[in-house]
């Protein structure tokens, strides 16, 4: 345990000195600020309180941004240490590989948490400033916050696995961004194309909900959608939220975070520094 904490502390310090903490926070805050500014401008009064509306927008933001930040922090974690040559020495210490991964994971999750809380905080504050009823949306905001961290955890794990499997950080950077594009952007596109082509057959009925659950980003979206009660009206893939119980989506998210970490540890075990 103390070994994990030691690693986490050192990694956090490095993240701080590399300005990663600053970059992550600025990125989140900037986006959240722009979104809550732009999102409210043309809309005018809606039925819901302002914070609920903001949370809705923030969810879409989180699906893009949280995995991106997580992957960017993690791609260097193992490949970088191998290239720099610092890994070999650490591995001769009586620290288990999973402890190292966990240590890095904790520190990166911490950075993510800071960024997420800062970003969502700014958005929430601006919501409160404009609409005191926003207190109603606090629930949704809290849920969004911890699920964002779960989502981040899953992608941190995936990032570590890629970092461990690719020999060089440059390669890892490319792979990680490619993966982001595939999981976050292409995946849904492909599913939609499949559903349309299949026209209500086996794929749509059986595989499609499973495929949605299989992608942590989709699971995250579905869970937040279903919980915020916006399902009935959701378009696109979100429409499936009614077919998939929130608890399953949450389960997938939790499972993914755990599985990704296991995957990372597994991949790391195969690394020869």
């Amino acid at each position, binding site marked *: 345990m*103390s*070994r994990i*904490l*030691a*690693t986490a*502390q*050192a990694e956090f*310090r*490095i993240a701080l*000195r*590399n300005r990663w903490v600053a970059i992550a926070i600025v990125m989140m805050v900037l986006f959240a600020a722009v979104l809550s500014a732009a999102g409210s401008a043309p809309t005018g009064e809606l039925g819901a309180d302002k914070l609920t509306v903001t949370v809705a927008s923030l969810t879409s933001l989180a699906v893009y941004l949280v995995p991106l930040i997580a992957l960017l922090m993690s791609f260097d974690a193992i490949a970088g240490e191998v290239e*720099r*040559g*610092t890994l*070999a*020495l*650490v*591995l*001769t*210490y*009586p*620290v*288990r590989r999973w402890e190292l991964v966990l240590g890095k994971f904790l520190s990166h999750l911490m950075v993510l948490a800071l960024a997420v809380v800062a970003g969502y905080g700014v958005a929430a504050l601006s919501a409160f400033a404009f609409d005191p009823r926003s207190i109603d949306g606090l629930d949704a905001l809290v849920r969004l916050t911890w699920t964002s961290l779960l989502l981040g955890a899953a992608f941190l794990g995936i990032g570590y696995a890629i970092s461990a499997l690719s020999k060089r950080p440059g390669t890892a950077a490319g792979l990680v961004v490619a993966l982001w594009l595939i999981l976050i952007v292409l995946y849904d596109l492909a599913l939609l194309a499949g559903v349309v082509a299949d026209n209500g057959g086996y794929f749509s009925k059986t595989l499609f909900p499973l495929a949605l659950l299989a992608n942590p980003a989709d699971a995250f979206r579905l869970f937040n959608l279903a919980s915020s009660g916006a399902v009935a009206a959701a378009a696109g893939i979100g429409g499936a939220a009614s077919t998939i119980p929130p608890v399953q989506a949450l389960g997938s998210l939790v499972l993914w975070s755990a599985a990704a970490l296991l995957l990372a540890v597994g991949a790391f075990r195969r690394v*020869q*520094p």
Partner: protein
Amino acid sequence: MTILTISQVTKRFAGLTALDGVSLAIEAGERVALLGHNGAGKSTLMKTILGLLAADGGTISVDGHVPGSQAAKALTAYLPENVAFHPALTGREQIELYLRLKGEPVKKAAGLLEQVGIADAMNRRIGTYSKGMRQRIGLAQALIGHPKLMILDEPTSGLDPVSRQEFYSILDLLAHDGTAILHSSHALTEVEARTDRIAILSRGVLVANDTLSALRHSAGLPIHIRLVAQSGQADEVARQLGGTRINGKRVDLACAPEAKLGRLNDITRLGSLVEDVDLIPPSLEDLYTHYSRRTVQ
């Protein structure tokens, strides 16, 4: 008590046998120097002992444990040949991290850094350190705890002469307390004085493994005597002693180890003809070359 037992270890990389049936054992308190040409397999052997590389054949036991097991790692210290640290951390932070990973109290950091002579730079980032300073951080971390086995890959590379001596003194103390030390080096003069045993790798094969004197004896290399004659007397000296005249003043002789005193006697008998005498025993370099070359052929 045998701390490290290596038997018949073989390690192959794509199309290249880096280690070929290497067997070696080290007792507690013993200091063994691992010599060999570049690419001989020294670092590979060390990484195999540490469990960083998996051997393709043979077995290694670290005080009865498998390399890379928690138990083995707990009692081993390592200094890699290309020591590297995270440039953004300070020396102190880095050592504290290592202390915590070994389960030692972090307050020992200052003492360790003092021991390797970079106490005054310990709050600067490692990125600003000179090469030798970085190497010292490496040494400091290798000294953490009370390792039963130290694996040091070219530990003095980059160290200045004074700190080398200090470092070897620390090693002596550790060995005295029962730590088994395996270190590689290309600085043969240092090795000569500071080790109990010498192992020589050549192209992955262990070609020598004995004490220096035993190696010297079995090699039977000649001793060199270098004379400086009175000016104009070099020819005369060379004639009388049967040596080779090098230039106007110098005469060189070679003799078997057991004939050394006799020859010295001959020299002093020349009286004022000789201005200076130097005795040059077969150096470790000669021995190393001798053993190294043997297998290469």
